[in-house]
């Protein structure tokens, strides 16, 4: 039998390695037509169109522009939906062509002639700082301070004051966003690449002013999301709008360049960090001022100052966040929003402080270890970071490190070792799940969550199998359909901590019903057994202590009307949101920098995590690794190059927008302490999806400094910056 934590291989693995797994663009409906978007090529203004050539092109069904697109009952400014002629940013969807074939749609879209009336655009990030304004992130204010920061800095023996920047990054999941939409009367069917089927359902219902039940959303597999598929974007509703207008099912798959602007990005950050410390390395004050860009369509705030509030014991902390409005695609949540960028800045600053103090960077962290929440003084739900530091340092061989920069070399290569602290909040959301014992001997476990690569089919199967003590091979996990019990967005490292308590509760309730049925069935060998003496073992109901008295649950159900026994459970967060709940980790990295050519390659990484209980060792490991790969990418590769004269992205493709390739990634040694945190949820898991990227950028930047003596404060650290 399987136990929670076992490295069960992905139950959807065979579907994924054979091509059987069906992604959203892969559904066809009889009569399907193809849509292709026309994108803006100015950053601000108004647009009208000449469409005659496009309309004449072979196969064209419709050319939709603001002039003829249907008026939506409840349009939303955040989404550009052909409801007006405004252009807010480059690469905004401004028109749409529907044609019989994909080739015809693409070609006809190229024939649509936009006529722009350009307006002044806000494109100078730094120049707009005086107009910046405060913001919030998920309801948390962007500004929070305590103690006397100025006093703390005045009394400091050592100060570090630096500015760190991170560029606009684009999520670029390998699966481009795609929607297939189809109307039957006032019922809307949507197949969408999403991290949140319920969100799509609710937004569609609102925009088209139809009941939520009239919208049926399916997404069995999401080809990666990392935040950009968490919200509904223009193309989803444009597909639905087009389908309504042409009265045929419409498929709209974004082209890769169309994923640079209309579907969110991690905004640029400009972070001023000031640290004050005693000669012994005790922090006396931290000041963290963050400016990030947002759009004219909505305010999204990258919460880069937030991790500073929880990382180190310090009596005087001030965190400030300012939004800078630009005529540029709207930013959104991207893997470890705020924390990936914020930990980069604060953890490089800590490294700089360690060098000011001539102190080992790990010792500096230990000297400022936060035993309790630095602001409230409340204890964490569970924090074992000290063990992470110790285990990681030992595994890496950190004690052998020479503190001096440029102290290690092999031929042309300068060798550097760096480390950083990692952190991510532990949170969860309401969720529901259904568990059904079927007369055919199978168990259905279902929840309207999503599989974005984190392994939800597997985790749901593993939790159900281990709780019910039914073989994995008898369990069918179902998700990704809005007709299933509602579950939250797959984001914020919250899925496991949200879904598994609901699955657990549904399992327990369904099992109670099954047991009651058996005990009350005069034809069952378990008839008359006290409920607390009946248990499931290997798919059989067993009278404990009376081993001869047992029967498979399928036999029981077949005898009782051949009907299933099921339970649906809904669970809510059990933790007071004010209680400090955070995951932590420690990461150690070795880089090799070519002394002459400036190229940096990561040689090895050791990371140890305190993330509560691990539900599946195999899939959790993959998420840690994935997070670290993202951190390497943040440190060395990813950068959205913009020609700010026009606000147009120069590298809106996968050739010049650099994601790491296989050759960029070394062996990554990851492990978790696996100490359950039952305060957050009944399974004790805190989530593993995002912590891996946090701290990683800093550990690598710090290793580059150790290798070269050069402190690069604007990632990515590309060869030109090290020459």
């Amino acid at each position, binding site marked *: 039998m399987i136990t929670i934590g076992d490295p069960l291989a992905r139950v959807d693995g065979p579907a994924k390695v054979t091509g059987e797994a069906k992604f959203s663009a892969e559904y066809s409906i009889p009569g399907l037509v193809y849509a292709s978007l026309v*994108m803006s*090529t100015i950053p601000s203004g108004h647009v009208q169109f000449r469409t005659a050539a496009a309309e004449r092109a*072979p196969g064209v069904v419709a050319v939709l522009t603001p002039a003829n697109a249907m008026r939506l009952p409840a349009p939303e400014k955040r989404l550009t939906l052909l409801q007006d002629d405004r252009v807010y940013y*480059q*690469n905004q969807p401004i028109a749409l062509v529907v044609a019989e074939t994909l*080739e015809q749609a*693409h*070609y006809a879209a*190229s024939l649509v002639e936009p006529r722009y009336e350009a307006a002044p655009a806000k494109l100078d990030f730094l120049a707009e700082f005086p107009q910046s304004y405060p913001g919030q992130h998920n309801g948390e204010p962007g500004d929070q301070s305590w103690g006397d920061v100025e006093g703390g800095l005045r009394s400091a023996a050592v100060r570090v004051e630096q500015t760190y920047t991170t560029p606009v990054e684009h999520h670029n999941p390998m699966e481009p966003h795609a929607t297939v939409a189809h109307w039957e009367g006032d019922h809307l069917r949507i197949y969408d690449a999403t991290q949140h089927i319920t969100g799509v359902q609710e937004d569609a219902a609102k925009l088209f002013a139809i009941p939520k039940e009239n919208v049926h959303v399916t997404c069995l597999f999401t080809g990666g999301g990392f935040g950009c598929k968490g919200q509904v974007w223009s193309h989803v509703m444009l597909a639905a709008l087009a389908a309504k207008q042409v009265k045929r099912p419409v498929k709209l798959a974004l082209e890769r*360049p169309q994923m640079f602007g209309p579907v969110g990005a991690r905004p640029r950050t400009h972070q001023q960090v000031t640290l004050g410390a005693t000669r012994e390395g005790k922090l006396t004050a931290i000041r963290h001022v963050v400016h990030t860009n947002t759009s004219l369509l909505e305010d999204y705030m990258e919460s880069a100052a937030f991790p500073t509030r929880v990382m180190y014991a310090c009596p005087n902390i001030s965190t400030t966040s300012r939004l800078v409005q630009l005529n540029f695609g709207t930013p959104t949540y991207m893997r470890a929003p705020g924390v990936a960028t914020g930990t980069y800045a604060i953890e490089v600053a800590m490294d700089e402080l360690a060098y000011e103090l001539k102190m080992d960077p790990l010792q500096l962290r230990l000297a400022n270890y936060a035993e309790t929440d630095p602001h409230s003084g409340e204890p964490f739900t569970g924090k074992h970071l000290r063990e992470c530091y110790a285990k990681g340092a030992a595994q890496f061989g950190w004690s052998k490190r020479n503190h001096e920069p440029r102290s290690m070399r092999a*031929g*042309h290569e300068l060798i550097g070792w760096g480390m950083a602290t990692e952190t991510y909040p532990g949170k969860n959301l309401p969720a529901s799940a259904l568990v059904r014992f079927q007369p055919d001997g199978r168990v259905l476990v279902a929840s309207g969550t999503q599989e974005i690569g984190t392994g939800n089919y597997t985790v749901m199967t593993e939790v159900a199998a281990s709780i019910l003590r039914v073989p994995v091979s008898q369990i069918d996990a179902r998700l990704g359909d809005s007709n299933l019990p509602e579950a939250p967005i797959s984001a914020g490292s919250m899925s496991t901590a949200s879904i598994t308590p609901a699955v657990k509760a549904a399992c327990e309730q369904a099992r109670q019903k099954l047991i009651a049925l058996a005990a009350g069935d005069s034809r069952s060998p378990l008839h008359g057994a006290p409920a607390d003496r009946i248990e499931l073992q290997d798919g059989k109901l067993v009278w404990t202590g009376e081993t001869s008295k047992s029967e498979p649950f399928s036999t029981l159900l077949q005898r009782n009307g051949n009907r299933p026994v099921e339970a649906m459970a809904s669970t809510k967060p059990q933790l007071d949101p004010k209680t400090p709940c955070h995951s932590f980790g420690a990461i150690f990295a070795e880089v090799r920098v070519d002394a*002459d*050519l*400036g*190229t940096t*390659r990561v040689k090895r990484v050791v990371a140890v995590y305190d993330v509560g209980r691990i539900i599946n060792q195999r899939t959790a490991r993959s998420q840690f690794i994935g997070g670290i790969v993202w951190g390497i990418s943040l440190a*060395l*590769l990813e950068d959205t*190059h*913009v*020609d700010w*004269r*026009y606000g*147009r992205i*120069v*590298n*809106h493709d996968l*050739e*010049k927008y*650099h994601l*790491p*390739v*296989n*050759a*960029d990634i070394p062996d990554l040694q990851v492990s978790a302490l696996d100490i359950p945190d039952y305060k957050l949820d009944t399974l004790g898991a805190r989530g593993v999806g995002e912590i891996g990227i946090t701290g990683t950028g800093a550990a690598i930047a710090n290793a580059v400094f150790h290798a070269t003596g050069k402190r690069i404060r604007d990632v*990515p650290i*590309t*060869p*030109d910056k090290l*020459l």
Partner: protein
Amino acid sequence: MNPFQYERARDAAGAVQSVSPRSKFLAGGTNLIDLMKNGVEKPEVLIDVNRVALASIDSQPDGGVRLGALARNSDTANHPLVRQRYPLLSQAILSGASPQLRNLATNGGNLLQRTRCPYFMDPGFTQCNKRTPGSGCGALEGFNRLHAILGASPQCIAVHPSDMCVALAALDAKIRVQGKSGERIIAMAAFHRLPGDKPEIDTNLDPGELIVSIDLPPSPYAAHSHYLKVRDRASYEFALVSVAAALELDGGTIRSARIALGGVAHKPWRAEAAEKLLAGAKPAPDLFQKAGEAAVAGATPYRDNGFKVEMAKRAVARALANAGGVA
């Protein structure tokens, strides 16, 4: 992609006869189809030459090797004759693109690769003299980290993207082409153009000419050559700077040297002054540094690509050291 008429050519003569200003030859397609999808190339007729028998790789009586224009890049790089006699070329080809792309891409197509300049590849930028003559150069005062430091003009600062061609330049390859009036040979050095005031023309190929082979002369450089590619990520990326370096060593002396650079100019850039400086000298790190300096003499960087001057200098020195075994 615009609609086009598709034709298959059976042989080179047929291909050359049927070509017109409205048509383009289609070989591997890795660049042409890409540009057609972007709306940068809009041929009305595609003449598929993939079935023309020009894919063989043969030893020549003079000890050289003839590379068929339609031999795939991967087959060329892995051909025993190339690996033995021109490892510099194998290395250069293998440093480029990905295995999948090298399986599609042909030698002739590689020679005709167009620049990866974003202002050229994205019609959303209105300025590009190469795409739309007379429209201006978007890169000149825009994002130009990837652009030329040598041989550029105010009309165009794009670079040639090929790795293979850098090695071919160092190896003094000859390009055999066939036109309606017969065959002719173009020296590699004269094959690609500098932009001047006609950046829309990449090469000295006449309209309608088909590349039939790349002829490599016998080479004294097989034992001491190196292709060095510097880029942001470890693989699957065009060069920031690349260097093909080859030395002919005679005892402790350099008899002759060949150096070509990629990623720095509108064409593979032969560093003849650096080669002269090396000839007759003894290999040594400071000599290689001087060669590096000579290779970038007269370089003109722009806003974002100043680093390329220093990087190219150091890359030349490193490539020579690797080639000469004096790392």
